[in-house]
């Protein structure tokens, strides 16, 4: 691995840590604007995190150690995830350690821990949230996997860097399979990041909440880690989307200039992405919890069809 490689790896990590809350803030801002509210500042997420870290953490008296570890584990998973997704460069020493499937596994690991933690305290909401989270997860996960598979069938690889390189550096071709996959991916990422229409990030409306129910018992630094992890998840998903469907502008091995260029490109793409996300959220309405399986089932189906289309029309 080259020095540049190490550098870009660290770069990716730092970017993930820093940009993630920003992205969340950006999306929130846009949502408020679109809903004619006065938006909070772009840096609000940072402030919240800072505040939370300063507070004393309150923990239910019979909470087990698992409850306290979970936030760190989740945080670690998300950080690792964003480390192996090619955000600005495909020259990541860590990326061979985990390919697309492992990435999905990573998300699953995080999900399992967050759900277990939610069940640990044993309040009604915690377990309800855990159940719903797993319900969403076990449908979203395979769908996400299928989306990845579409790309990897085209590129003949499951390693993200290879996928991005191949997709980015072949002359523009229209892949109908990728179109289907794209739609499926959008639906999945909405569900996974607790967005409308599946979940609503900023209500505590008991009957509908999923993500908020999970972290209901958490406070202070644990809550901060959870939120940070959540925003990093959003960041990671967006990056995956960009990497799969708009891979242009991601730097390659030992190309420092491209690296310099890649950063603004990424920021630009994220900005657009966030805006679109906000639009979708505003435009659509929250659906009943039992509609969610249908929603995600559709996503799964679309992805599979994409796969089949790919086989049928022969990847390239």
């Amino acid at each position: 691995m080259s020095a540049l490689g190490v550098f870009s790896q660290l770069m990716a990590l730092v970017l993930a840590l820093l940009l993630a809350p920003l992205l969340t803030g950006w999306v929130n801002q846009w949502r408020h604007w679109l809903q004619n509210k006065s938006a909070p500042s772009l840096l609000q997420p940072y402030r919240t995190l800072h505040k939370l870290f300063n507070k004393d953490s309150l923990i239910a008296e019979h909470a087990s150690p698992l409850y306290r570890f979970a936030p760190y584990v989740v945080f670690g998973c998300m950080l690792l995830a964003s480390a192996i997704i090619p955000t600005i460069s495909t020259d990541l020493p860590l990326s061979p350690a985990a390919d697309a499937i492992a990435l999905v596994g990573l998300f699953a690991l995080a999900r399992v821990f967050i759900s277990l933690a939610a069940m640990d305290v044993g309040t009604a909401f915690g377990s309800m949230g855990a159940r719903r989270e797993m319900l969403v997860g076990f449908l979203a996960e395979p769908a996400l996997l299928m989306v990845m598979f579409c790309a990897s069938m085209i590129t003949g690889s499951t390693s993200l860097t290879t996928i991005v390189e191949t997709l980015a550096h072949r002359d523009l071709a229209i892949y109908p399979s990728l179109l289907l996959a794209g739609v499926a991916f959008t639906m999945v990422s909405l569900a996974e990041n607790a967005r409308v229409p599946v979940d609503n990030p900023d209500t505590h409306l008991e009957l509908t909440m999923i993500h908020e129910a999970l972290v209901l018992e958490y406070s202070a630094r644990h809550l901060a880690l959870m939120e940070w992890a959540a925003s990093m998840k959003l960041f990671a998903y967006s990056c995956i989307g960009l990497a799969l469907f708009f891979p242009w502008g991601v730097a390659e091995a030992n190309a420092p200039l491209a690296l310099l260029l890649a950063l603004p490109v990424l920021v630009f793409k994220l900005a657009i992405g966030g805006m679109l996300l906000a639009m979708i959220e505003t435009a659509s309405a929250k659906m009943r919890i039992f509609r969610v399986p249908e929603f995600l089932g559709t996503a799964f189906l679309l992805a599979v069809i994409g796969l089949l289309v790919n086989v049928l029309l022969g990847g390239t």
Partner: protein
Amino acid sequence: MPSLTIAATWTHLDWVLIVVTAWLLIGVVGIAALRRFRFVAVVLFPLGAIFSVLLMAVALSAAYATPEVAVLPLGLPQLPFHLRLDNLSAFFLLLIGGVSAGVSTFAAGYFRQGEGTPPGLLCLEYHVFIASMAMVVLADDAYVFMVMWETMAFSSFFLVLANHRIPEIRSAGYLYMLVAHVGALGILLCFGVLQANTGDYTFANMRAQHLEPFWASIAFVLAVFGFGAKAGLLPLHAWLPDAHPAAPSPVSALMSGVMLKIALYGILRVGFDLLQTRIWWWGVLLMGVGLLTALFGVVFSTVQVEMKRLLAYSSIENVGLMCAGLGLSLLFSSYGMQALSALALTAALYHMLSHAFFKSLLFCSTGAVLHATGERSLGKLGGLIRTMPWVAWLTLVGVLACAGLPPFGGFVAEWLLLQSFLFTTGLPSSFLDMLVPVMAALIALIAAFSGFTMVKYFGVVFLGQPRDEKLARAHDAGRWERLGMLWLVVGCVLLGLFPNQVIALMEPVTQRLVGGGLAHTVADSSWLLVPVNIDRASYAPVIFLLGVVLTFGLAFVLVRRLYHGRLRRVPPWDCGHPWQTARMQDTAEGFGQPIQQIFDPFFRVTKQQPSAFDDKPIYDVKVEDPLWYWLYLPVARVVEKLSRIVGQLQQGRIAVYLMYSFATLIVVLLVVKR
């Protein structure tokens, strides 16, 4: 007979035989000390465990060795016991030894003085059970194979009946034995085909025969039927969720951890080794049955409310996945794609190994919980992580592994399986090309499902608040039990972290069976698991783990450094609801309910819901296996009807009887005359 003079000259096979005899001897001693419980528990079972470790060591060193054969002066005169220790058997011996070491240690602390079968007898049955499994793997002719196979069946049958005073357990044992025997008959007929009328039942002869496709297919289907009955493939799975809970936990651990694999070994031996021809639809059949079984199993395991049943169904699921892997490998090798075939086979083998470890670990944990609480229904458990931390944390590893999460063994297997499913373009028939990705999707779905199940299992049993006040008095597992579980946990972790080394063990097997292997690609990349080539896919569990742990630690330290680590214990937030009770948590039913709603057609649900005006509202849902009503009961009814018809023959009148004889005479005379 090999010379037993100098230990130096002993072959691997001799050592294995020594272990087996040792086990049998232990069993006999157990009979001698029929009711001296302490002795059996503290001396005999650990002794057996030691020999299991020995077996494991032997198997490890035999993995690369050339096949060794021996002939015991037992069995039929023309057909003495032929034994053969080749790489395949070595692999399975490794599995048997590794798991049984842990389980025997656990058993040392598990069996209690009590009703039912006396401990000494249990000891005998237990050791005969593992010994017979080892012998099945060694068998090199049909006769010894069948003998050991059935010995395995009925020793485990008696183990299942250990607490025979409970009628349910008796009926479970009955069903188990019945299905096992019917399956065995199938296997018998399969061997009947394979010996191709030569009257020579050695496997060597069977390998030499080249059957015409028709007979070969019959043999294969019979094998799938027979071994599938033991492995719990659809639709012959019904015994499994009954028998596993009925048995004492160590036995369920062995049955589901090892015995199911032995059944798959049978499919491997017949389908990949003995049968020389391979036809593509065999592979499709195996895949189809496997995936169907897997989906069925996992869907049912999510809605179970009894911990051992839940695990049993999850075993069905895993067996299905392994079967799918085998099928894919068969499909590839029928088209002569060695590399991919080897990949799929490796995935299946890996899954067998890791499942053996984590599933027996989980069953042991249920045993510990059972002892601590005397409660097997999920609905009454909860919060045990506080009263029995050892069991809880050890179980967590097993749960993560079973959920197929990185960086544990289960994930590696699924990863390999998906890899092999993923790159299957270029099969001759486009139909298969379409089929395989769909199957991959199905596998992904199933894997995600098992995550759901495992969260349910761990969350409901160990987390939350105890749903029953007697749980507060629950005690943690004893010394032996911890030790046994620890061993299994170590197995899970190692399998997760060092896939390359493990795959190297499987190399000879895949080379023998499908003439390909991963070792050459795996070898040159030390810390990366690279099935095909680095650009295509790679996975490094160690780095992965390090990554998580590092970020974990870093975050932990940094948060404390930059801010503080202050913590206050308070009662949980009651949502403005003054009295919160443990019964307000999700029950097991509640947790599985969404799945039950989505997959409604899978189940046979009988609901009893209260109306709004009930003063004593009762909510009761019974979720049953529809196959029981579609297949098993009708068959029973048909038999009953037939026997009623037959019964009419014997209706007591001597004149009628004489008429029978007379008619027979006339008819036969007519037959002969023409």
